[in-house]
């Protein structure tokens, strides 16, 4: 199952939380899936079903109770230990609330990963940072603002710029379009699609945004009942009869969004 063409392999992962009083809450029950390189995988599921937890496990912020996660054919630990690359070069992560460093301004936030891997030529950094800021649709004079002075949409954009600055092989996005207006959300889809054409990176994104699923994702994983009930291209998902899928994808709004989708 774990070949070199696989970017992320999730192998029989269980996640359980115990409250210390003997109550165990199972979040993931024996999840297995493999995401091929270059794939844009959307992860959908009801609120609180463990999508973000799965994402955190892929990054290595949380260790699953059982099972293994492989990145680029190696176990997570081995992959990150590999001295030729740093974690930052492996994956760019966009957190739900941006997770910008509040003490640094926008410019320094975006430049942070560059400085961390040892690039210290100021002119180079300036060009890379401003190019990314322009790419995500920010004005260059926004660069001197502190995160506290930004609007929600701008925080998302800066966080995305930071996640993209090293143009990593793997991009993990936690609800990238939540809180963006429809135009910004469409811009985001176009931006990611264009970058993907150029750089062929692998993307895993948690989203509730049907437009993103339709326009961007090559495959969609549905997390329900503590399991991945399907990991297929969207048309195949739409044909699936699971109650959650029916509820999520076959309500009137979803039908409008998916009307033009070729089956």
């Amino acid at each position: 199952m774990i070949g070199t063409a696989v970017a992320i392999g999730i192998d029989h992962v269980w996640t359980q939380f115990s409250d210390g009083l003997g109550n165990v809450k199972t979040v993931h029950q024996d999840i297995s899936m493999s995401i091929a390189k270059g794939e844009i995988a959307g992860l959908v599921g009801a609120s609180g079903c463990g999508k973000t937890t799965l994402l955190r496990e892929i990054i290595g912020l949380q260790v699953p109770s059982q099972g293994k996660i492989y990145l680029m054919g190696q176990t997570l630990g081995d992959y990150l230990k590999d001295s030729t690359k740093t974690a930052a070069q492996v994956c760019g992560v966009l957190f739900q609330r941006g997770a910008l460093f509040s003490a640094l301004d926008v410019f320094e936030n975006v430049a942070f990963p560059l400085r961390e891997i040892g690039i210290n030529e100021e002119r180079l950094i300036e060009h890379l940072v401003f190019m990314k800021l322009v790419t995500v649709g920010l004005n260059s004079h926004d660069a001197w603002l502190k995160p506290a002075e930004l609007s929600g949409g701008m925080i998302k954009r800066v966080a995305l710029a930071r996640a993209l600055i090293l143009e990593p092989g793997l991009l993990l996005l936690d609800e990238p379009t939540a809180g963006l207006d429809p135009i910004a959300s469409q811009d985001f889809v176009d931006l990611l699609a264009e970058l993907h054409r150029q750089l062929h990176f692998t993307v895993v994104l948690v989203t509730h945004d049907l437009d993103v699923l339709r326009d961007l994702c090559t495959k969609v994983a549905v997390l329900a009942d503590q399991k991945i009930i399907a990991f297929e291209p969207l048309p195949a998902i739409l044909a699936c009869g699971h109650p959650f899928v029916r509820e999520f994808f076959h309500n009137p709004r979803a039908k409008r969004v998916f009307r033009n989708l070729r089956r």
Partner: protein
Amino acid sequence: MPGQTLRLIETRLENGGLGMALVGDWTLINLEPAKEVAKKLRALGADPDVHWDLNGVDLLDSYSALMIWQAWGWRFPASVQGKPEHLCFLARWGQLELPQPVPQLPFVQLMGLTINKMYSSFFDQVLSVLTLLGQLVLDLGHLLFNVKAIPWPDISNTVYDAGVRALGITALVGFLIGIVLSYLSALQLKMFGGEIFIINILGMSIIRELGPLLAAILVAGRSGSAMTAQIGIMRVTEELDALSALGISHSLRLVLPKVVALAVVLPLLSVWTSAAALFGGILSAQGILDISYKQFLFKLPEAVPLSNLLIGLLKSTTFGFSIALIACHFGFRIKPNTESLGNETTNSVVAAITVVIMMDAVFAILFMNVGFSL
């Protein structure tokens, strides 16, 4: 074929010129370790006679594109060929306009601005503490007529957090200070044969001075910092705004319970600390000077008139009031970033302890002639 590493291949052209072919994945991960390639690129980039062939490039990321563009001297070389999307990507660097850096102010002006800022910031702070105090008085007045609005649960919580949970540490510190003080004084008194005065020294200094001061310093460090951080985090998570939106006054629900609770609990804590210190002192006196605990306790009321205890209690109430007020003031000054949270919490503790000691000095002067049995 993606996945292969990058190379820079030198070729001879038919017309005898030098050709450079870029091959493979030109990405940050590959280019960063390949110092030789980067060096060669830079060396040949400015040469106008070189023909550049980018057709073999599979992946081209921004970093590599920028390195190539920089090596070319921020423009296309005379002779270049490659995939249109790559050339287009490279050309984007030419269109990027960097903002003008903000001009640095001259030193004198900068100094002037800094001093002016410090000056006005000091008055701002004094003003805002006074505003908070005034608001607090208004709130207290309001509560007099609206007894139902008194935030009892919040007051009780703070009494528990700042008082009950501080019993252990204040007792320990008081006890140890009592032992040390008693031991050091005993050594001196022995020399003059005035052992019995240990009771006066310990009783007076602990009940009137050390008990209230120790308790206040410990509470300022323990609860003052916690209050500042709590209000600060509420600012960061927008809880303060949520309270305002619900029409709930910050001063009534956040400041007043803390101030009232500390003003109530600090005198109690100071009595507790004094008791622990006296206990330590008694133990030590018994060991070194053979003054029994019975004798000590019997002589204590005589050596220390009651007014000293009352002065101690009055001081503690004032200390508690000001510690909570200062903690809240700095809490509201916190801006939503990590740096400010740390700075203001530090400022809060430093200011609270300084104010406590300054007020102690004021009390010492005010009650100069009160409470001495001589």
